[in-house]
């Protein structure tokens, strides 16, 4: 519809995972100083909320930007399945070297979802807890 309006779809997902904030580029003492409790060697966990926004033309036959079942399936396969009930440091290759801060988790999720074939990925927002939220929209943000 050429009415100058833009429509985005927002969808929230959940996963639970553990992580440890520890940088191989810092000394033990610096790691403790920088990351505090989050540097606990055995790790700790969070219930993460992932909010995904996609945009595109609304198909007049379906009324949808993207079929929700397809979006859910894509996010499940790319993010939820590999992250849920995992140790992010141990089980997700991207975080072997990269510290799994929520900033980096947000960027990693964006990279994994940006190839969704049915709509344009606008941004990814991750809540680590109800009080901490991170957002990434690719490099233009």
């Amino acid at each position, binding site marked *: 519809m050429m009415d100058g*309006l833009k429509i985005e779809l927002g969808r929230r997902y959940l996963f639970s995972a553990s992580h440890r904030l520890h940088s191989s580029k810092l000394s033990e003492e610096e790691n403790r100083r920088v990351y505090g409790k989050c540097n606990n060697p055995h790790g700790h966990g969070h219930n993460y909320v992932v909010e995904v926004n996609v945009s595109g033309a609304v198909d007049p036959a*379906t009324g949808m930007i993207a079929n929700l079942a397809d979006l859910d399936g894509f996010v499940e396969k790319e993010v939820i399945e590999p992250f849920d009930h995992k140790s992010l440091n141990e089980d997700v290759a991207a975080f072997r070297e990269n510290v799994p801060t929520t900033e980096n988790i947000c960027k990693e999720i964006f990279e994994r979802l940006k190839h969704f074939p049915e709509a344009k990925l606008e941004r990814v927002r991750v809540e680590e807890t109800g009080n901490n939220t991170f957002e990434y929209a690719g490099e233009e943000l």
Partner: protein
Amino acid sequence: MVYLTRKLEFSASHLYHNPALSAEENKRIFGKCNNPHGHGHNYTLEVTVAGEPDPVTGMVLDLKELKEILEREITQRMDHRFLNYEVAELKGQIPTCENIARVIWNLLEPKISKGHLHKVRLYETPDLYADCYRNGAHRA
């Protein structure tokens, strides 16, 4: 620029069915939402108006006025209604979150007397929503 947001809830039923498609295609595309008797949601609407606060009143737009506009245009039209059959603006459209958000935008935009409509966000459930705003608008 200041952005003011007002929330409102309404409850309505709907179903997804495109008469141009076969029964099987409808079932495949729309799944549970194709149930012929419909189903319902508690919708949450967030309406954001942008503008400069009036130097005398300190307001972008009087919240009472916005509340009345929302009551008249949205609540009375959609609350406790079957969206497919009772909302004229949705006739011939599948009442998805995307389409309802656009209809709400078109109902509200001409009624906003001060500032301008910046964004409409419509939650169908806490985990699913659609945003509508002008192409190229800054996303506050």
